[in-house]
């Protein structure tokens, strides 16, 4: 099988309501998503999506995805899409870094591999069954009262695990937020406090030793070095996210005992191939992982949920789905959908999401063909 053509579409995905994180420092109103369809000489089509969370969250942005595809897509024309490791090596030689663009192509090749094998991706990732995956809500930064109200809303929609976005320059406000949320948390629910790298190490150590909460705390500071410093000095388990870009970063985090878990996001690390390696490493060293994508429609969510569903329960924490926050649905009704706080990955071969290309309008680029 050979890749004959790669088509690229751009879609604006507005959020239902503006979203703030990192102490309100970062505001998001719409996402810029890029869809790719890889066609092969035997008539197959594989789909992928790359959707950075705005341009202030990770070193990635929508226009940059499409600019990078100008180098990456031609490098794959004429090659075998089912040889996933070779596909990734080829992309890594063509353009170092730029995981956010490689991710879409990698996911589309996995879609083709699943279709060729007649198996859903969760099976190719090693699972014998795909149990429902618990979902993580995402609670925008606000006053303690606002955040408590958002958690109650999410609970009413079936969510039992919550990711509360905190972190700012006012450490007293963060102590108040954490205390109020812990006190009001419904029985049986769990919360992760996601700081999105807003604290300096000193503030992190001060706040985390002042609160009664013993829940997970995510990405307290900017760098791995700073987070490792904090992890040694606080009672809460630490989860890392934004500072984990390469496999090497994960080895370094483990070596330095900087965390007890990580977020595994295909778009942040370069696709499902690299995310699976990180997942497998995490299982081997006993990490707990939230497996989800950086952003995107139900297509990107579904790709990540295939990997989440195939991960042993003891290593897996809840997954967030982005499309619950979007005002538009480019793949109506398809893929994983929230059912009482849980999702189940599709059983259809491959990714199990097939966008209606006609509804996407004209592609912004066509390679090969």
């Amino acid at each position: 099988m050979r890749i004959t053509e790669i088509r690229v579409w751009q879609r604006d995905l507005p959020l239902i309501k503006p979203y703030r994180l990192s102490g309100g420092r970062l505001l998001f109103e719409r996402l810029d998503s890029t869809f790719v369809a890889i066609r092969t000489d035997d008539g197959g089509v594989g789909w992928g999506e790359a959707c950075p969370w705005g341009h202030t969250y990770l070193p990635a942005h929508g226009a940059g995805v499409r600019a990078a595809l100008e180098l990456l897509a031609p490098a794959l024309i004429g090659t075998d899409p089912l040889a996933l490791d070779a596909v990734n090596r080829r992309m890594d030689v063509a353009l170092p870094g730029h995981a956010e663009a490689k991710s879409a192509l990698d996911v589309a090749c996995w879609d083709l591999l699943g279709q060729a094998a007649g198996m859903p991706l969760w099976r190719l990732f090693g699972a014998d069954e795909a149990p429902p995956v618990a979902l993580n809500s995402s609670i925008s930064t606000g006053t303690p009262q606002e955040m408590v109200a958002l958690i109650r809303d999410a609970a009413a929609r079936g969510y039992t695990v919550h990711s509360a976005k905190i972190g700012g320059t006012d450490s007293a406000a963060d102590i108040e937020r954490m205390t109020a949320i812990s006190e009001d948390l419904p029985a049986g629910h769990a919360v992760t406090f996601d700081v999105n790298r807003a604290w300096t190490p000193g503030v992190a150590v001060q706040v985390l030793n002042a609160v009664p909460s013993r829940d997970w705390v995510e990405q307290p500071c900017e760098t791995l070095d700073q987070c490792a410093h904090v992890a040694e000095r606080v009672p809460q388990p630490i989860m890392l996210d934004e500072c984990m870009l390469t496999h090497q970063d994960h080895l370094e985090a483990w070596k330095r005992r900087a965390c007890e878990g990580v977020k595994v996001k295909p778009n942040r690390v370069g696709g499902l191939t690299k995310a699976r390696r990180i997942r497998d490493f995490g299982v081997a060293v006993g990490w707990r992982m939230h497996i989800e994508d950086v952003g995107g429609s139900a297509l990107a969510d579904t790709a990540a949920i295939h990997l989440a569903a195939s991960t042993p329960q003891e290593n897996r924490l809840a997954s967030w789905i982005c499309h619950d926050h979007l005002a538009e649905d480019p793949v109506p009704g398809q893929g994983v959908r929230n059912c009482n706080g849980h999702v189940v990955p599709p059983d259809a071969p491959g990714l199990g999401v097939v966008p209606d290309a006609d509804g996407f309008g004209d592609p912004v680029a066509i390679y090969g063909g």
Partner: protein
Amino acid sequence: MRITRVALWHVPLTSHVVYRMADGKTCDSVETVVLRIETDSGLTGWGEVCPIPRYLPAYARGVAPALEEMAPVLLGADPIGVEALMGRLDNCLRGHVYAKSAIDIALWDLTAKAAGLPLHAFLGGRRVADMPLYHSITCVEPEEMARMAIEAARQGMTQFQAKLGADADWQADAERLARIREAVGEGPLVYGDWNCGSTRLDAIRTARAVAHLDVMLEQPCATLEECAAVNAASSLPMKLDESVHDTASLMQAAALGCMDAAALKLSKFGGLSALRRARDLCLHFGTKMCIEDTWGSDIATAAALHLAAATPPERVMNVCDLSGYVAPRLDPNAPRRCNGRIVPPEGPGLGLVPDPDVLGEPCRIFD
């Protein structure tokens, strides 16, 4: 003063000699990106970044989309006080340090022009009249590389960087270092650069084969740990390049003890603001510095020369006249190598006047 417009050009630079490195990386024709930041005062600032394909996580056509993302912050901003504005750009778009490098250089050019001072006055003050250059020798047959070294030595060059690893033959790499060392005689600095293209085993075998020679090794493998292992297994000093690119990696390299010298490249760190911080850190570590950029023409070259001229000369190992390796020259009057040394341009700011005929019409305008 307010920024009113940014013009961007893509200019292909053709190497006088095709330049080969490990893993099939080459520089025969490479696109450079030139920026001109215009202001309501009439002053303009010039910036440049020229990513070598497949060398770092950077590519020429990634600059314009990144600039488009940052344009709303850049346009209307006061260009004076470079770090403040660069901080706002960092909040607008994370990473993309190579694109920011061109912007940062242009802002420094503007700031120094506004003050009517040469740029080195803002980077610590001029320490020296001129700086030593190194000559980089493409990875070909050992004999031919020795011939190229002799030719450069005749022009006054005293520092030679031999590219290694293009044929993945550790014995040929040892031969390259031995032949060049012999060709240039005692005294000149000779070092061999794998550009991450070797393995620990092969690099250690090469290192042990030349252990009796006065040579330095550069960036044999992709990670710091591997480079440190090669360094520990050999008695030779080591220079690092690709794996030192920010404060954290410089700190780690210093802690591993494998950074006798380091390549401080503008676009790897994110421009003059970031490179000045790296320079100050290397002064603390006692690391000898090669102050330059990955590739480019006169703007990138001049920016690095200003920083080097303002750095204690005993810590500047060398600089690079990138614009001497390629055509066209962006500014025909920019400094050229003379007897193995080079001076920064005269005049306010970078001291450059790029030739409008060479640039032609801008490819993109942001206003």
